[in-house]
């Protein structure tokens, strides 16, 4: 049986400029991200409500969402402050939670465009759902899909935060609506795909899940995911083997 190992050589590169295909890529990403943008908006409202209840005022929560756009880090800061922790503990927790973006940034870097500075800026578009939506397998990512997917989620996060701060709990509780299950259910899609294909990739996905499961009760938030990233090093065992 003939197996095509990599589409890289056959991939059409239609010039370097922004063309029709690029626009279609951004739009496809934005469209794919609509359900996540809706969930993100509701999460943003709950962040705004929570921050207001902690006495953060109006400007601080909205500014936080504008310049950070990270649900995990921002909720972590409210949790640390809400339980009487200090600024240093809050920053440390946020950094640990977002350390995964280092690995995700390395993985996606070759798929971005331009020099180091431009790639660093484009890398800001990496959030969990967009990174997963843009993944094309074998370590390749669709840059336009990533950026297109992040824009509506970012807008939803900022607008949601502002609504939560200004208007209170207007759209209902994230948990009551079951919206907090949307992201993990979506993240399950790729590992399940690997499970179906079997082989080493299935083993690595299972190992990563098991490692995270074992570490959750004993380590600070963020550590289980970083530790699970290490299982990808098993790819070194037999590089280039297409499976």
């Amino acid at each position, binding site marked *: 049986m003939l197996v095509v190992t990599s589409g890289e050589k056959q991939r059409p590169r239609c010039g370097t400029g922004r063309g029709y295909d690029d626009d279609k890529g951004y739009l496809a990403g934005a469209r794919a991200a609509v*359900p996540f943008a809706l969930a993100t908006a509701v999460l943003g409202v709950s962040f705004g409500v929570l921050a207001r209840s902690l006495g953060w005022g109006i400007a*601080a929560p909205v500014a*936080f969402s504008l*310049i*950070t756009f990270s649900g995990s880090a921002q909720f972590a*800061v409210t949790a640390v402050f809400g339980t009487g922790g200090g*600024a240093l503990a*809050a920053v440390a927790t*946020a*950094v640990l*939670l*977002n350390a*995964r*973006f*280092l*690995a995700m*940034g*390395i*993985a*996606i*870097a*070759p798929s*971005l465009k331009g020099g*180091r500075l431009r790639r*660093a800026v484009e*890398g*800001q578009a990496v959030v*969990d759902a967009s990174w997963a939506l843009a993944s094309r*397998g*074998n*370590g390749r990512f669709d840059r336009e899909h990533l950026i297109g997917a992040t824009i509506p989620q970012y807008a939803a996060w900022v607008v949601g935060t502002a609504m939560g701060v200004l208007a209170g709990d207007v759209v209902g509780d994230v948990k009551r609506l*079951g919206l907090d*299950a*949307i992201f*993990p*259910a*979506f*993240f*399950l*899609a*790729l590992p*399940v795909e*690997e499970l179906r294909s079997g082989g080493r990739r299935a083993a*690595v996905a299972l190992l*990563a*899940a098991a*490692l*995270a*499961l074992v570490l*959750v*009760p004993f380590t*600070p*938030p963020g550590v*289980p*995911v970083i530790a699970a*990233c290490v*299982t*990808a090093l098993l*790819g070194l065992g037999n*590089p280039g083997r297409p499976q």
Partner: protein
Amino acid sequence: MISLWATILAVALANAAIKAAGPILVGDRDLSPKANAVTALLASSLLAALVVTETLGGEGRFAFDAKGVGLAVAAPALLLRAPVLVVVALAAVATAVTRAYFG
């Protein structure tokens, strides 16, 4: 209040720096075949771990709740090749219904 704003700025800068680090390190080079073999496995291992931490809550302990039911519905649906949107909706509905009944 000053400590809040300082924290917000510090988290924003740290977050941007973490996201910038990978692209700055790698630049416009392609990854070596070895490094690519690792990043090719990264997506599924990282997402598998996120499923675990986001389902069980990451506050240094297990917090099994209705979300687990949502994921238990999502997994077989994915195995049966249901469209991802359908799976995500099923998970949300199963979670919401479970919470409504067992609160």
